[in-house]
């Protein structure tokens, strides 16, 4: 049987943040996940809070933290340190994030010709954040025949003033295409194929020359060029640097539908950091069984080839996500189940789950469903039946499984994930969670 100080279930931003933090603090960490998480389809920026009527993530954070039911009521003060910590961690893989909690929230283009509000973006997307000068144009440039990015449609969408709420958009939006070298006659490429091609230095050079020609031919004048987010995976920093050096206009990446390269880069940077710090990661199987003794999780079992993989553990971090991630499962009779421990879930009545309008700006009541915790992120009964006492002494809930957030409408998912993951690592790493010495310290 394997032994860990902490088992983390779930490999999204929350789970990996907790795992890396714990591994860095010297704990033996094992991450178990059914599959990849939102990192693989999220646009790669860090959404802390983009709440209607607020100008900065910090303002949104304050607003949400003032609501006692929101995870930020507990986590608000942890967001800034967690963010700073993450920047340091991913910098090790050459990944740079631009913007901070006090940066203005600005509309940035998406790959269907809309915008979404953002303030903290990876360097590759950051050029989209600056306000548009009155004479500045935006050029949408995509590889010929790439079915997940249609420059004409993107440009048509971004020409509409409504696409730029509360601000002026570019003076002009045009679409151009370039032919990716050697791709003629080959089909069905996704962003990952293109990114891997960009990782190759000689291909990259030829492709950037083709892009530069297309951009130059579109006419003179100040502006920026939007490219689909496929500027390299392993060598992204080098690709970005080469693109800046080669292209006549400042480039920025536009996130695509899955697979999302900016999200993949973030995932890879965290995975590298975890491995550097000695943590383990196993992806592909759901937790089969959790053994509990005297109110504490003591063992976790996952299926492995031909046998069961058993891990004895001192603590469990639950980072399985909400409904989309599979941490919560709705039943036919209108209940929500927490899928690993069967924890009680706070949720509205079944007939009030969804709002009338699917794109209601207020979101759906069901979005806020999740697990309630105490001040140490330990699960409690939401009805108050346990008198607020933790249901498990050594289980900590992080990320979108936490009740009270509407990550889609409040755009707070990354902030909650980071801050809760960071807090869980801090609690377990320092031993404050159990009132005893930390596990890592005990082992030393």
């Amino acid at each position, binding site marked *: 049987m394997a032994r860990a100080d902490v088992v983390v279930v779930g490999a999204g931003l929350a789970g990996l943040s907790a795992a890396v933090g714990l591994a860095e603090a010297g704990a033996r960490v094992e991450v178990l996940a059914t599959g990849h998480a*939102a990192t693989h*389809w999220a646009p790669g920026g860090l959404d802390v809070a983009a*709440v*209607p*009527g*607020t100008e900065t993530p910090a303002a949104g954070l304050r607003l949400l933290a003032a609501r006692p039911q929101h995870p930020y009521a507990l986590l608000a003060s942890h967001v800034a340190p967690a963010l700073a910590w993450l920047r340091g961690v991913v910098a090790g893989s050459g990944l740079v994030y631009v913007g901070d909690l006090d940066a203005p929230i600005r509309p940035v283009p*998406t790959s*269907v010709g*809309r*915008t*979404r509000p953002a303030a903290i973006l990876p360097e590759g997307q950051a050029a989209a954040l600056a306000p548009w000068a009155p004479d500045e144009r935006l050029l949408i440039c995509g590889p010929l*025949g790439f*079915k*997940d990015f*249609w420059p*004409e*449609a993107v*440009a*048509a*969408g971004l*020409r509409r003033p*409504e696409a730029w*709420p509360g601000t002026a958009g570019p003076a002009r*939006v*045009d*679409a*151009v295409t*370039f*032919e990716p070298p050697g791709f003629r006659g*080959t*089909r*069905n490429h996704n962003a990952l194929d293109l990114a891997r091609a960009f990782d190759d230095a000689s291909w990259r050079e030829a492709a950037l020359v083709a892009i530069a*020609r*297309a951009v130059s031919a*579109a*006419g003179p004048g100040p502006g920026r060029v939007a490219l689909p987010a496929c500027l390299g995976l392993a060598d992204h920093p080098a690709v970005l640097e080469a693109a800046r050096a080669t292209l006549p206009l400042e480039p920025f990446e536009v996130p695509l*539908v*899955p697979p999302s390269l900016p999200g993949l880069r973030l995932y890879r940077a965290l995975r590298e950091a975890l491995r550097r710090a000695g943590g383990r990661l196993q992806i592909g199987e759901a937790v089969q069984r959790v053994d509990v003794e005297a109110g504490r999780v003591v063992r976790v079992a996952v299926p492995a080839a031909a046998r069961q993989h058993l891990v004895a553990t001192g603590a469990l971090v639950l980072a399985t996500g909400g*409904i*989309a991630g*599979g941490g919560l499962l*709705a*039943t*036919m009779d209108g209940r929500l189940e927490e899928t690993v421990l069967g924890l009680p879930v706070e949720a*509205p009545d*079944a*007939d*009030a789950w*969804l*709002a*009338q309008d*699917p*794109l*209601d*700006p*207020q979101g759906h*009541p069901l979005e806020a469903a999740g697990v309630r915790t105490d001040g140490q992120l330990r699960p409690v009964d939401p009805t108050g039946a346990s008198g607020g006492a933790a249901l498990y002494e050594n289980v900590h809930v992080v990320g979108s499984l936490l009740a009270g957030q509407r*990550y*889609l*409408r409040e755009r707070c998912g990354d902030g909650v994930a980071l801050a809760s993951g960071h807090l869980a690592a801090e609690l377990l790493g320092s031993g404050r969670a159990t009132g005893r010495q930390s596990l890592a310290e005990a082992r030393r």
Partner: protein
Amino acid sequence: MIPSLVDVLVIGGGATGAGILRDLSRRGLRCLLVDKSDMGTGTSGRYHGLLHSGGRYVSKDPIAARECIDENRVLRRIAPHCIEDTGGLFVATRDDPADYVEAFPEASAACGVPCEEVPLDELFRREPALDRSIWRAYRVPDASLEPWQLIEANLADARAHGSQAVPYQRVVGMTRNGAQITSVELHDERSGSLSRVAARMVVSAAGAWAGRVAALAGVELAMSPGKGTMLVYNQRMTDTVVNRCHRPGDGDIMVPVHLVAILGTTEIRVDDPDRYGISREEVMALIAEGSKLFPDLPRMRLLRAYAGVRPLYQLEPPADPGDVRGISRAHVVIDHEQRDGVRNLVSIVGGKLTTYRLMAEQTADAVAAKLGVSVRCTTAEDALPGADDRHYYWLGHRLAEHEHQGGGDAELICECEIVTRDGLERFLDEHWPCSLDDVRRGTRLGMGPCQGGFCTFRAVGAMARRGTRDGDAPGRGADDRSPPESGAADDAAEEATLAAFVEERYKGIRPIVWGRQLQELWLTTGIYAGVLGVGAPRSAPQALVSGVNASRVEPTPGGRDGQG
């Protein structure tokens, strides 16, 4: 576009209306068909996809059973390309009465419906997902029938014979001069303009909406629309149509349709054919009944729920107004001259898709007689356009075509339904300008297991590209780089399209919001609203502060149309 004078105006672009248009056109009449929406978006596009053998009606309604088997044979001859020859089964579960089951072969024989017993070991070998307690099975010639292709083929034949069919024309008024309707007023639902058409005869094939059309002529026609709810599963747990061997009830038919399977149906009387909901109880009852055929049903993933309204009409007032199962499925041609003193109005009500052609023939006979036309009906003999090779549709047909055209090198826009870029561009060229719905019905894009999550925005992209093509010819590369002129694409329509897509997914899933369906809805919403910024405006600050909107939610019809 709208002619000012025609021989016959047909109202309603479902299978029946299209069939009438075809029939009358072949008798030498110049006709116009209009629909308030797109063709096949009413009852025809929202049915379960079953070409009846008649087996369902052998005991309850022998006349309907005979009509079904006759028309089944006709359609296999004239429209094989719209039919997947799945065959059908009537199976007896523990809940089905032995006397009904034992009498079934004889009742079928009496109606001329071919029926043979299938040994149980063969049954379970062929359809292993069926419940093992099934104790009897009969094979009948049921099949799966694609409505949009059928409608399109009927309209194409009518056009070839000089008639016209125009979508999005709502009939808003009729002018009467005594016993004669002198003109009909049409509202173009897209441009908002009004036009007027005079017709020697007006035929209402408006189905569940026939009462409203009749009212415009000052005639009362009381329809009893019967809602039927259906559930679409993400897989074919059966390759054969499966029916329960009992008196027709809820949740007792499973029809494999293309890549999915559809469980039907319920039957609930509704007052308004445009406003009806799907309740969770109704869905649960369907699944409970369906599980008697396929015990794993509660664990299978659903794609959507949808409902259609049967155009039921009752000659006699009902004993129990709520009982719509009791109302005959029989169709009735109503000559409003005899009934209401309106000389040039005929309505066709009741009926079912399987017998659409017969309904059209009888309606056309009535119209022809009134107009003094003696040309006889030819629609049962002559095959529909597209049926040239007389082969049935089969599931592997798209893949075979795809491989024939270069296989892996052809770019797939919709992976589920194998819609290639070339195929999509060809469709756009032939039908431009057109809507995403037209593309869906014409190519089946987005109707497979992912329900359009990954291909909708691609189709929108291809349409934007088609819209700007005058300034940006396809195939232009780095050496041909002048930027296209802006504004050619219809930005507003495109804007509405993506939001409408999310709304449709939502409507279809709302009545089945649990398990993987809910997870998929959340993922779709996450991608479209969260990542891509669709329809998520940064609205007024109070929107956030007011908190949970827990108002009671009215159920809505799931999905814009059936079959996927």
